[in-house]
């Protein structure tokens, strides 16, 4: 399984931090350049496709604006790993193809570590330089959500359904 580089952020990251209201009129890729800048200046520019965020509790509290998920997808973030999420953010994440992994022990994953993610088995394998990799368990998710994330989100899934109808 691929390794994903870890960026750490704190607790209670809200949707105004992820997608600031002042930039909401812009296109997604442009809002993405301002993601988290109020709390972590430069992070949006440092993130590379395939990286993951590891956060404290209550990630994504606030608005229903799914741009708060979209900015991370746009930056290529593969997953957010946190002890808890706002329920609304959690739904939006899967709808847009971002893995929201609920892991009570997320704080054991340090910045700069690399993780392997097995969403179906609800397991993370954490690699740090000079240490034996260790495994963390996560909350098990229904298959339909993991299917949605793997499809790249609900729109892609619906597109397949509609395409199949047209072809039939």
């Amino acid at each position, binding site marked *: 399984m691929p390794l994903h580089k870890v960026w750490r952020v704190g607790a*209670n990251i*809200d*949707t*105004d*931090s992820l997608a*600031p*209201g*002042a930039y*909401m*009129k*812009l296109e997604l890729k442009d809002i993405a350049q301002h993601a988290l800048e*109020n*709390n972590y200046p430069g992070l949006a520019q440092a993130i590379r496709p395939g990286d993951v965020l590891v956060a404290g*509790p*209550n990630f994504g*509290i*606030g*608005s*229903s*604006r*799914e741009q708060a*998920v979209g900015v991370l997808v746009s930056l290529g973030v593969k997953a957010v790993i946190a002890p*808890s999420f*706002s*329920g*609304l953010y*959690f*739904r*939006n994440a899967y*709808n*847009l193809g971002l893995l929201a992994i609920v892991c009570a022990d997320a704080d054991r994953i340090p910045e700069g570590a690399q993780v392997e993610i097995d969403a179906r088995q609800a397991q993370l394998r954490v690699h740090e330089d000079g240490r034996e990799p260790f495994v963390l368990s996560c909350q098990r998710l*229904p298959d*339909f959500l993991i299917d949605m994330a793997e499809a790249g*989100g*609900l*729109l892609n899934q*619906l*597109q397949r359904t*509609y395409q199949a109808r*047209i072809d039939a």
Partner: protein
Amino acid sequence: MPAQTLAQKLIAKASGRQAVDQDDIVTCDVDLAMFHDSSGPRRLKPMLDKLGAGIWDKSKVVLVMDHYVPEEDDDSRRILKIARDWAGELNLPHVYDSIGICHVVVPQKGHIRPGMFCVGGDSHSPTGGAFGAYMFGIGSTEMLGVVVTGKIWVKVPRTIMMQWNGRLQAGVTAKDMMLHMIGLYGTNGADYNVVEFRGSAIDAMTMQERMTLSNMTAELGAQTGLIAPDATTVDFLQQAGVHEDVDLAHWVTDPDADYEVRSFDASSLAPMVAAPHSPGNAHPVDELAGTPVQVAYIGACTGAKLEDLRAAAAVLKNRKVATSVRLLVAPASQQDQRDAERQGIMKTLVDAGAQVFATSCGACSGYGNALAGADNVISSTARNFKGRMGSPDTNVYLASPYTVAAAALTGRVVDPRNILEGASDAAA
């Protein structure tokens, strides 16, 4: 039939079952899908075009233009043009353009009734829960799913029953109750379960105050905030032109259902203020008394309905806003504004020095950056996350309309009950 919470009954009906168990994942038929200019057409239209799909039932869709109105720049004009053109092309039957904020307009137009299962493209959609409807917020892509299929999944939640006994003191409101609970339990304290409100303090409340409770369950991280319908609900619905029978005996939580009760004494609650940068950073007003403010904002679905405007006017009557403060008032809907004009409330506010703004989301959503330059803002809105109201340099304090008005008078955070007492002394 097993004993069920109100939430379970609503989900059971929507999923075509007799009863549902907590943690079941079920698919529900949606009775109403509401969205606005920001979350709606500009996001939905391109996705619908991509799918080559249409709307499952236009009669069940409500579109409200409230976020980017009045249009202040080319981006806003472009976003509104998309919404208006789309509504016209599809001939949508329920479109409310620039007449107020969706969470207030939609009930006022009679779209939300007890027993319904509704979704909204906005996080404050739990407001509809005040009517005994299961209503919650979703993102635009999930709304696309609803709009093409008419269905959505939910995991049946637990219910946290907030039991408010006693009666609120004069000058203390639903907003103070919510700030108190968010301070206690945190901004995700409900963990996407359902919060329900009951007790003598709730029974005594107007429908608009109940809406404030349900509205701010978003700040508790609840999926929705329910209140069982009663005679007050039925009266409001009749005013809104809804005359259908409501099964008041059915739409309640059964006494033997499985739920958690948390009890509060309304009569001992003080006005509350949430300091920057979280609604969970809540304190009794005395702890923050003396904090200077330069802008006082009475606005939003949370804090500028008729009852909110009335509260502000009770403080401001025959008084003047401090010269160091700008008081901005953006009524939640045109209906609220008209009612407030008829009752002399708008005149009281303007005479005190308030500037009146359009009936839209305005500064609350921060889309217009209206408050740039102010250090400290006190606001009757729901959120004070860093940058929420436009500028990351602005400190936003959340409070009730009474407390916001009192701060506008004095230029500092102050207990509004002191000023209300003065007002009644003067009258006596």
